[in-house]
Every structure is written in C-alpha cells, then in structure tokens.
C-alpha cells in the first residue's frame, strides 16, 4: 500500500504539468492545517543512496548526522568504504570537508547544496495559495509547491517550479516515526536524480 502511494505520487508528478493543479480547489482558511509534519532528521541515519547523473550511476551509503539544531554533517562512501564526499550544511553555510576530485565541479556541488538544503530545512513560508484534493493539500509559495497528506499531515512532496515547467521534485515516502523511509529527488532541467532508502542495520 505504501509502495502504491509512492508510485502514484511519482507517476502523478512525473506525468502531469502544474496545470493539473486546476483539479485542486481553494481551501477555506478555517480548514487549513497549521501543524505540518516535516521529515525529522533528528538523529544519525545511514541511507542506502543511488545517484544518477547523465547516464552515470553510482551508489553508496550516505550518513546524515545532526551536529546541532541548524547544522548537519553528510558523508557519502561507496559500499567498500571509499569516501567520496564529506559536507557540512546549515541554512546559510556549506562547508566541503572532503570531496573526491572527480566530483569537484562547482555546478555539481552547488546542485547538491541546494538539494540537501531543501531536503533538510523544508519550511512552507507564506503560502499565497492553499488548495486541496481528496487526499492532499497543496501549499503554493512564490518558488515552491508543497504537497501535504490530508490524513497524516506529513509533507510528501516539494516541487520547485519555473514559469512553465517544474525544475525539481523531492518526494518523501513511507513515514515511520516522522522519518520518511524513502526519499526521491529528481531534476527536470538536468539528468540528475538521487534515491535514498533508510538502511536498517
């Protein structure tokens, strides 16, 4: 059932343009949810992670550790233990402690910084429109769309949109104890995606 929801969200968002939101109706202010469950990255989690970049696929283990309330340390190694990158990220700063030379491309690092900042610090700031369907609430801000499950209040998708097309999508699936067990990040203007699954040791 969870997988079905995951697949349906992916299919929904990958096959439709933003115009599909015309199916959503404006939500009366009295029915808006004030408490949204954002993914809780509040302990060290190891993620089984795959990156796909221009037909190159590489996988490994991504460890994300909260250093304090506003900062995370992220280390990616392959399964054999070779360390590819070691970043520290907060709302304002991005420190590269280590990065394998092949990955040291400004555009690539910038993309990772933006993606992981959106992943780790999601907030719905001043939505100018809130819509609803049977299962979801849709919060639209000037830059992003946020999809929230009506029954659980869990944030299930963030979508970054341009004037015409979507640019980026983050999908959060299978929540357990406020933590999504699967996360899918897909770029639409560049062939780049990240798939993360919680590694149960």
């Amino acid at each position: 059932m969870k997988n079905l929801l995951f697949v349906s969200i992916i299919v929904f968002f990958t096959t439709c343009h933003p115009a599909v939101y015309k199916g959503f109706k404006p939500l009366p202010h009295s029915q808006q949810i004030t408490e949204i469950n954002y993914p809780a990255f509040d302990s060290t989690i190891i993620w089984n992670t795959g990156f796909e970049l221009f037909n190159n696929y590489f996988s490994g283990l991504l460890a994300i550790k909260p250093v304090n309330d506003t900062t995370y340390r992220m280390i990616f190694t392959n399964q054999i233990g070779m360390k590819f990158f070691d970043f520290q990220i907060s709302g304002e700063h991005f420190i590269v402690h280590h990065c394998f030379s092949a990955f040291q491309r400004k555009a690539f690092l910038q993309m990772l910084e933006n993606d992981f900042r959106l992943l780790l610090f999601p907030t719905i700031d001043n939505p100018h429109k809130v819509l609803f369907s049977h299962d979801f609430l849709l919060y639209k801000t000037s830059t992003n769309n946020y999809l929230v499950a009506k029954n659980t209040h869990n944030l299930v998708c963030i979508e970054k949109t341009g004037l015409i097309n979507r640019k980026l999508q983050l999908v959060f699936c299978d929540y357990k104890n406020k933590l999504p067990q699967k996360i899918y990040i897909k770029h639409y203007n560049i062939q780049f995606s990240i798939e993360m699954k919680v590694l149960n040791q």
Partner: protein
Amino acid sequence: MLIKIHKRNIFLTVLACVFILSTKAQPAGFTTMKNTGGFKQKLTQVNQKTQTIQSDFVQEKHLDVFAEDIVSKGKFWYKKHNKLRWQYTHPFNYLIVINGENISIKDDKKVNRFNSSSNKVFKQVNQMMTDIIQGNIFSNTGDFSFNYFENATHFLVIMSPKSKDMKEFLQKINVYFDKNDLSVSRLTMDELSGDYTNITFTNKKMNQAISDEKFIVR
C-alpha cells in the same frame, strides 16, 4: 631562567616528536619483522599452491564524526587467475565481480559493467583487491611501498600507496597474515582524515572447487 625553560621545551618537543614518529612507524603490539626474506619466500610458496579461496567477511567503516561504525557482512570467492566475487549480504545487497579486466557492480537497482583497462584507478583498485585477497601483494611494488612487522600470531605488512590517485582514498593498507597458514585474516584501510575501514575474514576455505559461473553477473 628563560633560556633554561626554552631549552627544556625544545628537549620535550624533540622527545615528543621522536615518540610520535616511533609509534607511527611501529604499530602497537608489533615489532619489526625479523626475517622479511623468509616471510616473502613462504608467502610465494603458499600463493603458488592456492587455486581458490572463499571466506565470510565483516566490514566496519569508522567515520570519526559518527559514534557508531557502519557494519556490513558478506562473502567472497576468489579463483586463480584474477577472478573475484565480493558480495555484501547485510545490511544491503551489493555485488562486485572481477573477471580478468572486466568488472561488474550490481546493487538493488542495476548492473554496471566496466573494463578496468580503460580506467587507471579502476585497474589499480582491481589489482589491489585480487592481490591482497590472494596474498600476492608484492607484485605491486610500483604502486606501493612496504613495511614489515610481526607479533606472536600475525605478520603485518603495511602498504603505502605511491600514486596521487590512490592517496586520495588511502593513506595506507594494513594486511594481517595468520602465522599458521599465511592467509589474510584482517585488512585495515586508513584514510588521511583518520577514518578507516576494517575487514575481518572468517570461515576461510582454501582450494575448494568454485564454478566459473560464480564470476558471471547476469
């Protein structure tokens, strides 16, 4: 008085440096190997007799910033010459198969195939993995420098990479040989940052038949 203190500080600093250098040069619990030539000769003899190896392994990845190591388990099969199946079974599925110059890597999602001859680092890592597992480490004198130690139960060979590409991943590889049969019982791969990967081999079986099918990924 100032001069005296200064001299004493210099003496203490020099003493500390000597201590640090000596402890770095000689791993704790080990002394410099007495008969390096004899060890190499015996190892060569064992290698010549070894046709296949299979073993279970436990890998511990230590990252200084994390409290707990990442522990993974699996099995490997080696067959002369240059055939290796390295398979993680817990807590993830991941398979590396080296068959000559062909490398196949399979995870839950897909199979990637490479030819190590097209990539220098791949070729070095491929060579390093098969050579270490086989105990045939001295064929790599161009890529590594070696230091030799021993204690009551183990010979320890410390391999330090020479190439810049390898140094990016590894500061040194410590290979522990069991004194009973000269099989590799443990590997530690140290990084410059202080992080390391420790692999312990158990349940080793030598020279048992392994089908060539084991080294084909479909």
